[in-house]
């Protein structure tokens, strides 16, 4: 048995790794014992992916449309059928007067109406020009725009199908290719965004709360009196969340591949390495917050309000950064999630290699080193 009792002689130096190990085990116990938190930790990514994947979607699909057919002739019926058979629109009950259409709009039951005036067929075939009116609820302008272009496309298609012989003497043909996302699926956009969001939540909030809790309960003092180095305290707090976050990355990727049919086009290894870098960024942010605050509530508030909101706003996955005013565009650069979002999108969807994302990686690395540096400077080894 080792002897630590004597006044004489130094105790044998125990290995730092072993101490660190005891600490990490203890941290895991804290995390595993708290069932509710555990459920949030592992349930959140799954729920978020499923919500974003199935509930929130800005794609046009089965939109209710009213067609007020005042012509009731051959062409108008053909057009109506064409619209009804497309997967974008579902025909609502047919109405007879303009007033009825208007009241439907007022009730908010419909956002789109097509009015086919009398003599549609006749004008088309004999007068060569026929008019249609499209009514849109533009209180949601983006949506109105999208619906408009879908409907226009169908009308255009109809137009050329009834007059196949129509050929202009000169014509510019455009060929459109949707790169990286040929089916224009919305899922592609949000998977990297959800990944950034989840990692941010888990790492920043959980780490800061875990460290501040030790300050609050008074156990931090005991740890500072012990020979365990204060920096090791912080390191061992971060390790469990690093591992949990890697698991979360895995579960998000599995869901996206097997449930959402979104494959990882680039290198999986690179994706994991970049994720680990971003996790470390978030952990150092959490550590920085915990050094600055002394109560769990404040730590949680800063993590939630001060970080979640900017992450959602400025990472570019909900709102395009290019459309923001210049000052906000500049601010967006200090949001780590923005860079991670670009990186994940590039690897997962575009299938690009490291040569195309080294700049973003460098920015992320810079932010991380900066956070670690100021945390170390602010960290007081002695409490007073």
């Amino acid at each position, binding site marked *: 048995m080792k002897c*630590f009792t004597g006044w004489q002689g130094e105790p044998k130096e*125990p290995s730092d790794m072993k101490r660190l190990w005891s600490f990490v*085990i203890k941290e895991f116990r*804290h995390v595993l014992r708290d069932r509710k938190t555990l459920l949030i930790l592992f349930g959140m990514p799954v729920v978020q992916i499923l919500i974003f994947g199935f509930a929130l979607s800005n794609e046009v699909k089965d939109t209710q449309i009213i067609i007020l057919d005042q012509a009731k002739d051959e062409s108008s019926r053909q057009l109506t059928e064409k619209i009804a058979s497309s997967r974008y629109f579902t025909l609502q009950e047919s109405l007879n007067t303009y007033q009825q259409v208007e009241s439907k709009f007022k009730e908010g039951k419909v956002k789109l109406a097509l009015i086919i005036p009398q003599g549609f067929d006749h004008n088309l075939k004999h007068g060569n020009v026929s008019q249609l009116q499209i009514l849109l609820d533009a209180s949601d302008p983006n949506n109105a725009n999208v619906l408009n272009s879908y409907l226009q496309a169908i009308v255009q298609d109809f137009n050329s199908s009834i007059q196949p012989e129509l050929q202009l003497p000169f014509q510019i043909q455009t060929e459109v290719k949707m790169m990286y996302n040929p089916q224009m699926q919305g899922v592609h956009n949000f998977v990297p965004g959800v990944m950034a969001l989840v990692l941010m939540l888990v790492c920043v909030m959980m780490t800061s709360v875990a460290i501040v809790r030790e300050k609050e309960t*008074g156990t931090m003092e005991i740890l*500072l009196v012990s020979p*365990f180095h204060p920096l090791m305290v912080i390191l061992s707090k971060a390790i469990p969340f690093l591992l949990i976050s890697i698991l979360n990355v895995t579960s998000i990727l599995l869901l996206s591949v097997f449930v959402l049919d979104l494959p990882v086009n680039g290198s999986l290894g690179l994706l994991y390495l970049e994720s680990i870098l971003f996790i470390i960024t978030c952990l150092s942010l959490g550590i920085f917050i915990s050094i600055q605050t002394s109560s769990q509530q404040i730590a949680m508030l800063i993590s939630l309000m001060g970080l979640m909101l900017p992450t959602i706003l400025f990472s570019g996955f909900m709102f395009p950064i290019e459309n923001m005013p210049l000052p906000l565009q500049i601010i967006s650069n200090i949001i780590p999630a923005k860079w991670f979002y670009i990186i994940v999108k590039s690897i997962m969807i575009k299938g690009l290699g490291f040569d195309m994302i080294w700049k973003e990686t460098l920015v992320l690395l810079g932010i991380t080193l900066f956070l670690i540096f100021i945390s170390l400077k602010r960290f007081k080894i002695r409490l007073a």
Partner: protein
Amino acid sequence: MDKAIKTKELTKKFGNFTATDAITFEVEKGEIFGFLGANGAGKTTAMRMLCGLSSPTSGEAQIAGYDIYKETEKIKKHIGYMSQKFSLYEDLTVMENIRFFGGIYGLSNSTIKEKGEELADSLGIGEERHSLVASLPLGWKQKLAFSVAVFHEPQIVFLDEPTGGVDPVVRRQFWDLIYKAAARGITVFVTTHYMDEAEYCNRISIMVDGKIAALGSPAELRNSYQAKDMDEVFYRLARGAKRTE
């Protein structure tokens, strides 16, 4: 090295306020040293300096023969500390706490296991060793916290008002543990509010306004202040205090 603690004009200032004003004292090896004083007299500040939690403004001190400025890492290996706040992890079991604290002091697994079982049995909480600490009564928690503080057999253990809020019976049991530790050669440095506890100490110092106003064995102090008990000694000294909370 002959003394467990040795200080010379140890001072701590916070701005213009001198919390601990040039205190000089020595504590012998294996002694139970009571550190008394009214609230705000500077006890906790002094103790925090001795534990390395706070750096002194001026003065000198040696703990277990190591310099308080230059050899803090060595000091940390040879002291134990129990703070005013209850300081075990409530969401861990008794054995998990013991394993953790043993682990960060670098004890081997077999030592931890062997001593841990022994400890749980001797405290009479053998049955509860796998229960969460949160479920234990306060008295048991305090005794367990003390046992954990001396688990690595430090040379000196610092106790900051360890018996706050527990009943007299548990306090008596707690002092039995302190005596046992002292008998093993551990120096005990304890702050307290309870004057009956002061009587249990080998020697005590009484701090007033950041200075040590009296130092000696309980009997010596009673004699020199012509007092019937420690309560009276304390009131005579504390009455002169200018600082109030």
